[in-house]
């Protein structure tokens, strides 16, 4: 098994395997978890996202607690001790990058997340200086303003990529939502604005409601194997059409999932939910399953595999578009209660 070459590269970074830990606070906010991930075979780690709006909120909250109730009663002119919040917000994130670099040898990618243009470029520069290997831009927005045209949002997203691309020499990956009208066009624009890779896709938190208490429930759902389909399809569609490198994120549960994504053209697969479910040891299992499949099918490296099932190269390119839907549903009518 050891003869099989799992090496790949992502955004120009040589990686030992395509198994990359995706951005997720429970996995990477505690730097002590990073060596564990590396030991279990993570080829790289994308640190949890720095939410730019959260940084502002954190500061406002900090300021609020510093001021709340202060200068009001002569015995208690303040309620919070004088502490330097050196790790609050961007400063804290930069220190996490530095700590991560000290703790592990694998590449550490940073992730920025935000709603508004804000000061992305400034944060990206600081992240570059802190020594991140690459930067993932997490374009997160759930626009609800009925007066705001989609084109404007798209232009804004491209402007963000452009601003960051102009500010740093770090390789950039974009982790977009799947909800653009024409993702292929957006991808081309991201590329033109300076992106080198595309991570498909950003998952949005989908709240639930409690019908008894009439409350919103945060209750985040982990991704499942079903979530693999969207990245699989879009990687297949985009592979080879642009210069962008492609990565999959969402729904990787087994080594064969990795194989599928590599076959449609992914350079790496980001793993989060299955690690949260099964623990860091699951990384090694994925790797072992991947090796076993490759060996069983006579592959010695990933190169032979990558992109073989992309739309460009697949035997049935139209299957990635729409007819499949009708046929697949049609099969239900011949089974079960029907």
């Amino acid at each position, binding site marked *: 098994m050891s003869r099989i070459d799992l090496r790949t590269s992502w955004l120009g970074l040589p990686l030992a395997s395509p198994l990359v830990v995706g951005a997720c606070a429970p996995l990477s906010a505690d730097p002590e978890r990073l060596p564990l991930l590396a030991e279990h075979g993570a080829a790289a780690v994308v640190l949890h996202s720095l939410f730019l709006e959260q*940084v502002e909120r954190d*500061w406002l909250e900090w300021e609020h*607690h510093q001021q709340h*109730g202060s200068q009001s*009663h002569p015995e*208690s002119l303040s*309620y919070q001790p*004088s*502490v330097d919040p*050196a790790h609050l917000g961007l400063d804290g994130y930069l220190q996490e990058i530095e700590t991560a670099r000290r703790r592990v040898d694998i590449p550490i990618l940073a992730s920025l997340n935000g709603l508004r243009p804000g000061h992305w470029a400034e944060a990206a520069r600081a992240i570059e200086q802190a020594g991140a290997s690459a930067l993932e831009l997490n374009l997160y927005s759930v626009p609800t303003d009925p007066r705001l045209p989609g084109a404007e949002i798209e232009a804004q997203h491209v402007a963000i990529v452009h601003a960051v691309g102009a500010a740093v020499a770090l390789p950039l990956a974009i982790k977009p939502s799947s909800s653009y009208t024409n993702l292929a066009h957006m991808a081309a624009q991201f590329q033109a604005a300076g992106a080198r890779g595309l991570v498909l896709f950003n998952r949005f938190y989908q709240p639930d409601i409690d019908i008894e208490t009439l409350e919103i429930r945060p209750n985040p759902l982990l991704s499942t194997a079903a979530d693999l389909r969207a990245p699989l399809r879009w990687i297949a569609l985009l592979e080879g059409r642009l210069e962008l490198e492609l990565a999959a994120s969402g729904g990787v549960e087994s080594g064969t999932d990795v194989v599928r994504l590599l076959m449609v053209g992914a350079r790496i697969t980001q793993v989060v939910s299955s690690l949260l479910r099964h623990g860091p040891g699951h990384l090694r299992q994925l790797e072992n399953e991947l090796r076993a499949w490759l060996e069983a099918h006579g592959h010695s490296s990933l190169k032979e595999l990558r992109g073989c099932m992309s739309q460009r190269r697949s035997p049935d390119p139209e299957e990635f578009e729409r007819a499949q839907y009708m046929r697949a549903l049609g099969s239900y009518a011949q089974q079960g209660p029907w």
Partner: protein
Amino acid sequence: MTTTALATTALATIDANEAVARVAYRLSEVMAIYPITPATPMGESADAWAAAGRPNLWGTVPVVEEMQSEAGAAGVVHGALQSGALTTTFTASQGLLLMIPNLYKIAGELTAAVIHVASRALATSALSIFGDHSDVMATRGTGCALISSASVQEAGDFAAIATAATLQCRLPFLHWFDGFRTSHEIQRVALLDDGDLRQLIPQPLVEAHRARGLSPDRPVLRGTSQNPDLAFQAREAVNPTTEAAPAAVQAAMDHFAALTGRAYRLFDYHGAADAERVLVLMGSGCETAQETVDALMARGERVGVLKVRLFRPWSSEALVAALPNSVRALAVLDRCKEPGSGGEPLYLDVLNALHEAWPGERPTLVGGRYGLASKEFTPAMVKAVLDHLKQDAPLNHFTVGIDDDLTHHSLPVDGRFDTEADTVFRAIVYGLGSDGTVGANKNAIKIIGDATGLEVQGYFVYDSKKSGSVTVSHLRFGPQPIHSTYLIRRAQLIACHHWDFLDSFELLDAALPGGTLLLNSPWGAEGTWERLPERVQRQIIAKDLAVQAIDASRLARELGLGPAINTLMQTCFFALAGVMPLEQGLEAIRAAIRHSYGRKGERIVAANLAAVDAALRELKPVPRGPIQAADRPPVGPLAGAASWVRELIQPQLERQGDRLSVSALPADGSFPCGTARWEKRNIAESIPVWDPEVCVQCAKCVLVCPHAVIRAKAYDPALLAAAPASFRSTNARDHHLAGQAFSLQVAAEDCTGCGLCVEVCPARNRTEPRLKAINMAPQRPLREQERSNWDFFLQLPEADRQALDLRHINQQQLQQPLFEFSGACAGCGETPYIKLATQLFGDRMVVANATGCSSIYGGSLPTTPWSANGEGRGPAWSNSLFEDNAEFGLGFRLGFDQRKATAERLLRELSAPGGNGEASAPPPAVPPALAEGLLTADQSDEAGIFEQRQRVEALKRQLNAHSQADTDPRLATLLNLADDLVKRSVWMIGGDGWAYDIGFGGLDHVFASDHDVNILVLDTEVYSNTGGQMSKATPMGAVAKFASGGKPAAKKDLGLIAMTYGNVYVASVAMGAKDEHTLRAFLEAESYPGPSLILAYSHCIAHGIDMAKGLQQQRLAVDSGRWLLYRHDPRRLERGESPLVVDSRAPTVPLAEAMATENRFRMLGMSQPERSRELTRAAQENVARRWDLYQRLAEQEP
């Protein structure tokens, strides 16, 4: 050399606490601290600097150790000194009293040390946090040197001089300065740099101090027990040291002068060389006296002031040498009172000095008292005293500054006298606590001080409420040093940052003619005039004031600054004050904004910068119109109040309390209850509004309301006939209340708008789920309507206590609370527990209240929340001290038990058949059946209490009737004690600072005593009242003051300690997690016939939480296992059960997740993430261990 030193001296705009801490920190190796107002900030600075790793003068970081009390701190100081470490502490008032035993030891052993004291009044009939010299004067006999500084500059300087002197002469020094007036006054001062300190503190003396430390390498014995043959001589052996000390102090002062150019003497005389009348005093009053003397000299008067610096050891020779020979009359002013003495301390010492050392005919000498508890001391008072000395036989033992119409000791004062120069710009700024006003003013002072070279002074007055308090900033700027240590009485600029103040008190009394009034007006410049109260309009016209207005609250909201109007109002201040060129001022403000908010995000910076521009744009002159507005009532609806309320309370509410004369005050400190109901503060922006359709009548909102402003009543629907049209009512849902109407009513004018009620409300409007059965709505439009509704509601009958099933919150909450409208923080987590206790037991409750938040919101004038029911019964309340509350409460119990025992003995005697049982013997005074009933009454529930009260009334009638014919004195005694036959519920209430730390020894003794007392610990897990210092109740990993680096130790398990005695009922409750459990615990604890301890989790503003979500935080504390719910009832043993029942579920939420919702835990992650993770992990392990332990204890076979 002096010139060079002065030229390079760094300046800083700081208060005296900081000036002293900066010096003391650098000159110490060990600092033992404990919070006490107004000295606390010194310890806080030291703790913060140590946590940040700042070194002392010798390159090491001092160890800063918080102790369990000042007595503990003094013990540590003594011990550290014995080890040869340079050691200090900071304290005041009662704290200094607790140190006295050690001070005798430290001084007796000739140990070099400096203790810094922000001097404060001692508690007598009332507590006062404010400044006078009572505390320091109580240490006169200790043998410590006592040195007094009078200003911010002097405080920093004397901290250094005292350290140099103590190392030289080996007497420990108490360095003191006036609490608040100096400790909290901001001035621009010259700092002492490390070089200055190194030159001032000779290293050989430091080494000698270290060499005197105990060492097993050269052992000695200290602290022997001596017999009559030696002890006297040993005391006298210190004489040479004491006698040499004044010279050592003067030498240190001279050395200091050579280094810095600032010269001091043991007694500093200021005034005419040929003065005839001289004032002698200590502390901040010296400054005002100096200013006044200068003004009087300018008028040609021959007057002077002698500032006493070194009070102990006293040097009569130095005093006499300092006074001009021309003196004919001296007045010595003491800022303390020693009742029954021949005179106050300084007076007696000066008297003695003249007697022993004055050459020739002695001048006339009188003594007087001034400035107790920070009473104002003004130039007019100084002049009154100096004028008084012109009399041939001036009054001795006078007072100045008050009107003593009782014993006629006070001197008349002409309040019109003024010494302030026109060149001093003076501003008074009125703000609401926490609105940023004080912070903005402090910034302004720093900016002006730094940029202009002007002398600056800031002093800030706060009121006694913890929510909705008024802050008054007094700001002075001038070209000459400012010696005015009194509030501004005449100001060029008055700023009012909160519109409602215009109705509440006389803002413009202090306005100088031609001055400016700056208003934060919701009406804009154009709409302001007609809405001004008529009397304000008249004053504006009479004084020809320019009025400028800005709607800063609206602008702040629009700019995304929330309620923070500080940047806007600060800009307006600069625009109007004219103390520096506006452009320069604006640039400084902008620079300060960039500095303060730079790393907090561009939006915050931009919003504040925009606020500067908006302020300049929107600040507009208010055009004067005709005098037209009808005057509104000055304060609240006091018309219906008793006359004593109007006479005693109203002047305080109008900030005119200084005008009350001596005879108006109760001599023994007893005040009537229930005065908070008269102070309609109207501080809530929004208030809860009840929706009867949605309400399930669970009364949870009533239970949790910290200020008892939401009440429920069930009543005869016929009573609604007289209800105001807007009064809301519905049918009672509980079948026990069938046929009755139900109302939930809000006291709109007493509400703080905290929102806890809305958060706790479980009922959602099913069609509009964002609404609940209680929803917040703006208060102002509802104010009048709800005032009528509240008045109607109050006169509805209270519930029949006997008919309520107290096991259910919805019925129990129909009981009338006897704790209402306190000054606690909005959303306070403590007060709902107190209120609950008063509902359940208030009519027979006696409360011993430890000093702390609960004594401050519970007992601070002008108005207090403890109240009585319609029958005039209610909790009797008293506060002794911080450290002795358990003992104090136990004293209540013992006293009541003795009274009851006496009553019962008399009952038996007076109900016994007379004579020898002959038929002709007269009937006993008390019918035997009545006596039997009284003696065997079951008072375990409301019905039992009610019946016993009926019997007591019958007994009184019987005794009254019998006493007509019978002269047996026992009848009168029994009559006097009859009420003691009704169960007295003794409660000791206090916070964790009391129970876990300073009062634990006494509490522990009470646990072991087996007496029937109820102990309610309001556990906020910090010293809340002094601003959130760590206590032993602080959880692991929390950041608190005195634990800036996070508390490494686990929370003390006080409940477990109490359980080990076996005889103590212990309950751990959290109302927000399980309210019926709390209720059950209170009922069980009170019914338990021995000591009962209730540990009540109380969320607190110091936790860094959204206070509206306090109950959710309580639930999280329980769900994460950090706080357990349990009841330990020894009575269960009798039933063969384990006494402990754990009432909470196994933890369901990871501790880290719960901790992340409170800033006190998050702060550590932001400052030291690795330590935070370590402590969080350790804390999680503790939770698991503790859970297992409690499970095992609960499962144990008895």
